[in-house]
């Protein structure tokens, strides 16, 4: 919320679209689009002032690096080496000489300018189609200087959006569990960082075990499991104020929480007398509803983006499998029928797919299937990995992976990884400490 007030988006020029360059994101992209990200030009006075405020030599160049890294990480773009650039940033911003950019094989070009206006950071940027010699996007933002990395993320999102036709996912954050210490006595803390790993912050001290944080898709609230006072319960945390509270008044363990798509309910499991069923709690009127009532383990619930259905895993057929039901608990249908065990179903924000973890013959897979269970596709195989979370545009999954220990039980680590829906572009997501249970936020600006 706070960010929205600070960040004023001004559209300078509406663009008529007849794009000549396009990036196809539906297949694994084997030939990423060559793009030149010219450093944002900056006048000497603004540069000096930002140096004082932000301790950065040249904030224009820094922002362009943020843009460039995002585009590169997506696997869809190939940002060209700046040493090859023929045109100076100041001049390119005024009028790009397309022949020069064509010569170094750039198909798209980003130029821009940074100025200090009334103690604020003002950034203009333009995206150009080099071959057609046409401007594709032109935008300006004004914000507080400390938001400079977010400006880079927003530019990358606009470029991604214009060139792929889908919304971006760079101006987002990841909440996760930071891990330290030996495997038998792990210390776990809630942590949050920008999608690219910067601005990492720990939200709890590690005094009690915390697990499975998840973002509210509509605001800056988080729900997670805490073992505070050895009573494992679902909590609600406001990451802007630090206020937290227990969700509901259950006489036993509550776990596996997730928000409904409108952010008004929490869906979770409640375990009692050896049986786990799915419940919801309305955050406004605090009314608790029981959704499943079955002697099997029912857990890991996730709503469809329209809120009409719930997917979850259950061992009612003896082994852990994925089911879909109406949001009132009626019409339960099993959808996973492949070999092995299936768990942690998560509905894509686009509504068409369900991501899951599969265990088969001692290997763990992250995969996707359609909501009716057809079209199963395994994206990645490993010794241990689970708990996928979708990027807000439904193109990328983030999950965690644990390593096998050696014969002495040494060498354990847990790390975050991301992979494109196509199964390409598998990447380690760098974190300060070991990490698990990632959850991707919605776009912060929108």
């Amino acid at each position: 919320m706070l960010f929205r007030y600070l960040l004023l988006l001004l559209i300078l020029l509406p663009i008529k679209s007849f794009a000549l360059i396009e990036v196809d994101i539906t297949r694994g992209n084997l030939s990423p689009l060559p793009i030149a990200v010219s450093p944002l030009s900056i006048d000497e006075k603004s540069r000096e002032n930002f140096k004082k405020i932000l301790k950065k030599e040249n904030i224009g160049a820094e922002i362009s690096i943020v843009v460039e890294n995002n585009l590169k990480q997506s696997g869809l773009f190939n940002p060209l080496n700046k040493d090859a650039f023929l045109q100076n940033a100041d001049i390119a911003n005024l009028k790009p000489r397309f022949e020069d950019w064509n010569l170094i094989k750039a198909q798209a070009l980003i130029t821009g300018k940074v100025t200090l206006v009334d103690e604020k950071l003002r950034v203009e940027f333009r995206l150009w189609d080099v071959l057609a010699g046409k401007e594709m996007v032109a935008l300006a933002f004004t914000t507080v200087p400390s938001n400079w990395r977010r400006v880079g993320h927003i530019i990358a999102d606009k470029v991604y959006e214009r060139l792929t036709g889908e919304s971006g996912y760079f101006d987002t954050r990841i909440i996760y569990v930071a891990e330290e210490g030996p495997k038998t006595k792990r210390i776990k803390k809630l942590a949050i960082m920008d999608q690219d790993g910067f601005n990492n912050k720990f939200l709890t001290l590690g005094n009690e075990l915390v697990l499975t944080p998840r973002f509210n898709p509509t605001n800056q609230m988080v729900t997670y499991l805490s073992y505070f006072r050895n009573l494992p319960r679902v909590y609600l945390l406001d990451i802007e104020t630090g206020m937290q509270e227990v969700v509901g008044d259950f006489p036993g363990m509550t776990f596996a929480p997730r928000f409904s798509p409108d952010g008004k309910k929490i869906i979770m499991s409640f375990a009692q007398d050896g049986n786990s069923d799915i419940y919801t709690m309305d955050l406004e009127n605090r009314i608790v509803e029981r959704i499943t009532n079955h002697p099997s383990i029912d857990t890991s619930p996730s709503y469809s983006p329209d809120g009409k259905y719930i997917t979850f895993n259950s061992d009612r057929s003896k082994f852990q499998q994925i089911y879909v039901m109406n949001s009132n608990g009626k019409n339960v249908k099993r959808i996973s029928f492949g070999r092995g065990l299936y768990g942690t179903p998560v509905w894509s924000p686009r509504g068409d797919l369900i991501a899951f973890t599969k265990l088969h013959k001692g290997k763990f897979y992250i995969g996707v299937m359609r909501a009716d269970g057809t079209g199963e596709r395994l994206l990645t195989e490993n010794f241990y990995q689970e708990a996928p979370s979708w990027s807000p545009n439904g193109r990328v999954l983030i999950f965690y992976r644990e390593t096998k220990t050696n014969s002495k039980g040494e060498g354990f680590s847990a790390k975050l990884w991301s992979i494109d829906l196509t199964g390409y572009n598998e990447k380690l997501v760098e974190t300060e400490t070991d990490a698990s249970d990632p959850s991707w936020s919605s776009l912060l600006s929108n």
Partner: protein
Amino acid sequence: MNLSKILKNGFLILVASLVLSACATQKTTTTTGQMQGDVYTGSDSVEYLASGVPDRVFFATNETVLTTASRETLRKQAAWLRKNSKLNIVLEGHADERGTREYNLALGERRANSAKDYLMTYGISSDRISVLSYGKERPVDSGSNPLSWSKNRRSVSVKAN
């Protein structure tokens, strides 16, 4: 359903013990830990609530059924609890690392309750027993092999006061 579960479990143990004895004829090495089926039967990591009263019972993969050995251990615990009527216990239920985190939390809770139910049939009041699942969060053995995993699939009775 219960009967078939028990039969199936018994069958698994039987098959596995045949395999084990077949192995044993080839190799005469003694290992510190042992498994029957994939249930841990060794004493490594086991602690004692009192002399002759082991603190934990072990489970097969994805199972919550108590084995014959587990029931014997729990009967000893029940006898000890009857003698020490002022003591309360927490049953801590655990799973191995080869499952998803959330499902394992539920599985740990089910395992601890399976032990609790058995103690109750031997006359221990449910008021004296609380249940706490750690899922796969607190392994005793950090190894990544079937023997380590079998030690971690457990329900441990811990003195609460």
